[in-house]
């Protein structure tokens, strides 16, 4: 046994080193930082003193942080099903079609994923500008009124739209690849049994897509918890709330307000929350 363990460690060492240095260490450092609070005497520089769980208590009472989490949940509940639903529909359509058209469509749908998020958000920011927006120009011409895509009531949906635009293609390609792996004999057998196309979709394709779909769902949930870039890029264009996503809120707490300890505490809480949500789902996939 001993002879086997050592080579394993040796092979794992490069990964473990990097994992420890760039993953574990920052997490541990964040936990360490989160235990400190700032004491100020008068108007001079602050002293960092041990504060125990003070920052955590502050976070669970911080309505801005909690509303950020609420935004995140709302986003997840609305955007993730829309995106995955679209991805399934497109993947099934592509699976039905053949030839050049299919290839062109596949590339076209996938392309937004190849554009860096910041660039994509900049382009959308222009499309969302109230007076410059081509959408609003068309609607104005039709006397249909204009939408302020950047207004507080709409902005979360505007961000959801960017995310959907970016990620639907990626999800579609993954599902499409899974569809290609389904043995063709199953379809043949079904057709011999008199199944319609819709029957095949319902009883063969979708059930066999479920493992992939579950994985994509988990990725999407985790992605939702990490939303940052789109909101950050849209900020200079108008009023975007600090807590539109929890990640933006804790970034501003750290980098703008220089309160690294409090940001660390919120980051740990956010990570725990996602762990609790995605853990059972992951276990279900692993046990399949």
């Amino acid at each position: 046994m001993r002879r086997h363990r050592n080579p394993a460690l040796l092979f794992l060492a490069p990964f473990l080193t990097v994992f420890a240095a760039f993953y574990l260490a920052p997490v541990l450092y964040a936990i360490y930082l989160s235990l400190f609070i700032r004491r100020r005497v008068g108007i001079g520089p602050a002293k960092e003193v041990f504060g125990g769980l003070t920052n955590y208590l502050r976070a669970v009472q911080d309505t801005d942080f909690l509303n950020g989490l609420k935004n995140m949940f709302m986003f997840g509940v609305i955007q993730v099903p829309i995106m995955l639903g679209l991805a399934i529909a497109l993947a099934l359509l592509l699976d039905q079609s053949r030839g050049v058209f299919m290839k062109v469509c596949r590339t076209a749908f996938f392309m937004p994923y190849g554009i860096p998020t910041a660039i994509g958000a900049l382009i959308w920011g222009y499309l969302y500008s109230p007076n410059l927006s081509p959408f609003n120009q068309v609607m104005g011409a039709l006397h249909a009124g204009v939408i302020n895509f950047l207004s507080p009531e709409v902005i979360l949906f505007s961000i959801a739209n960017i995310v959907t635009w970016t990620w639907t293609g990626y999800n579609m390609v993954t599902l499409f690849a899974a569809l290609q792996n389904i043995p063709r004999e199953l379809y043949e057998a079904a057709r011999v049994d008199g199944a319609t196309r819709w029957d095949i979709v319902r009883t063969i394709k979708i059930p066999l897509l479920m493992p992939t779909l579950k994985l994509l769902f988990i990725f999407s949930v985790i992605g939702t918890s990490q939303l940052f870039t789109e909101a950050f890029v849209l900020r200079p264009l108008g009023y975007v709330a600090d807590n539109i996503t929890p990640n933006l809120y804790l970034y501003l707490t750290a980098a703008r307000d220089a309160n690294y300890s409090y940001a660390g505490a919120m980051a740990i809480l956010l990570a725990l929350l996602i762990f609790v949500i995605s853990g059972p789902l992951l276990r279900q996939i692993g046990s399949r």
Partner: protein
Amino acid sequence: MSHFTICRSFPRFCPFRNFSVALLAGVLVGLPLSTVSAQEAYKTPDYSKFPAESGPITLEVWTWVAGLDKAAALFEQAYPDIKVHVNNVGAGPAEYQKLQTALKAGSGGPDVVQIEYDFLPSFIVTDGLLDMAKYGANDAKSYFVPWTWGQVSPDGKTVYGIPQDSGPMALLYNKKIFDQYGLTVPTTWDEFAQQAEKLAQGSGGKVKMADFYTTNAPWMMGLVWATDGKYFKTSGDTWIQTLNGPESEKVLTYWDGLIKKKLVATIPGFTAEFYNAVGAGQIAASVEAAWGPGVTAATLNDRTAGEWRVAPLPQWSKDQPFRSGNWGGSCNAVTKQSKHPKAATLFSVWLNTAKGPVMNNWNSYGIFPTALAGLASPDLNQPDKDPSKFCGGQNVAEVYSQASNAVDVDFAWAPWFAFVNDNFNKQIEALIGGNATPKQALDAWQNESIKNAKGDGYEVKEK
């Protein structure tokens, strides 16, 4: 006549003789000669009072100011032992977030860093900046516009930066639009509102008189500054914050009235949306800081060039002493991480007082000087260069110099200003959306900012 007295005492070898004649001629001929003498009198501090460390030195400088590398090259010529590495790490918040991180990390920061006055206190309390008074910075004090020195040395003793530029405010207006609709240049806010009504009627509401910058708190704060309002103070060991004072309410209520009547636009500043509206002639005027015309000219890329003029900031009443406020402007600070604090101090002082860099900064980049000699220099006026060129060759610097003289000295900021700055956007959104009155918006701004400051451990009181 005093020179005659002197020369009578020393009839033959009067050393003042030629000088006296020149002086007399100057008085008689007037302006041209006084211009010449002002040029000769460009006063700079005695730089030998700021000795650098010996040996070859390289200073790392963080800034976003375009053309600062050119000014730094002039410095390298004057001080061959010191090399300056200018690093553009992004404007405003982009730089601050990097600086804040470097200060927290304990290394990786620059020697000299560009910081706006309103953000300076947040770096003082993180203990990241050097007190330049230790290296003789107070010797440079008398060479700067007093209120700008007050921004870098709030207590009059410690010095956390050398002022580089300032943003006294004035009214930038499009003369072509004003002529087209027969508007007169307003000198009071009442007149401003009347002309706005006239413009709205004449243009059928298509052209707005101005823009209320909904996401630039320091813009409105500058207008409140011009109304003699103050936001932050220290009293002993406590901070005092008053974002919702009567002056703030006066300013915001006035602009809210214009917004509700649809006389002014509410487009966030520095966006494609804003410059597009300005370039398309949909906005007739804008309250702009001294750096504003230069930025506007550069962004519009010669569109509407020559159509603009600058007029003094409208006043609340004709009888009051003339007042302006400040929006933006920045200084060069030295970090505690610097291994060459003396050289860094010398560079900061030289950069902002020597004639070469001061003139270069205004005439190519619209960086409005804080050096008294720079402001007095006739070379500041270059009609064929922006920002004057953008304003039809007008002496833009003169209008802003006058504004600079009318800026209140005792205006201070607080370390949590970055939060205050962002929270403003939230409250103005509520105001414009009809969900808050000016008073409610200001109260919410005050309360949420105080709550945040207290959460971060500051002792803050209201009023």
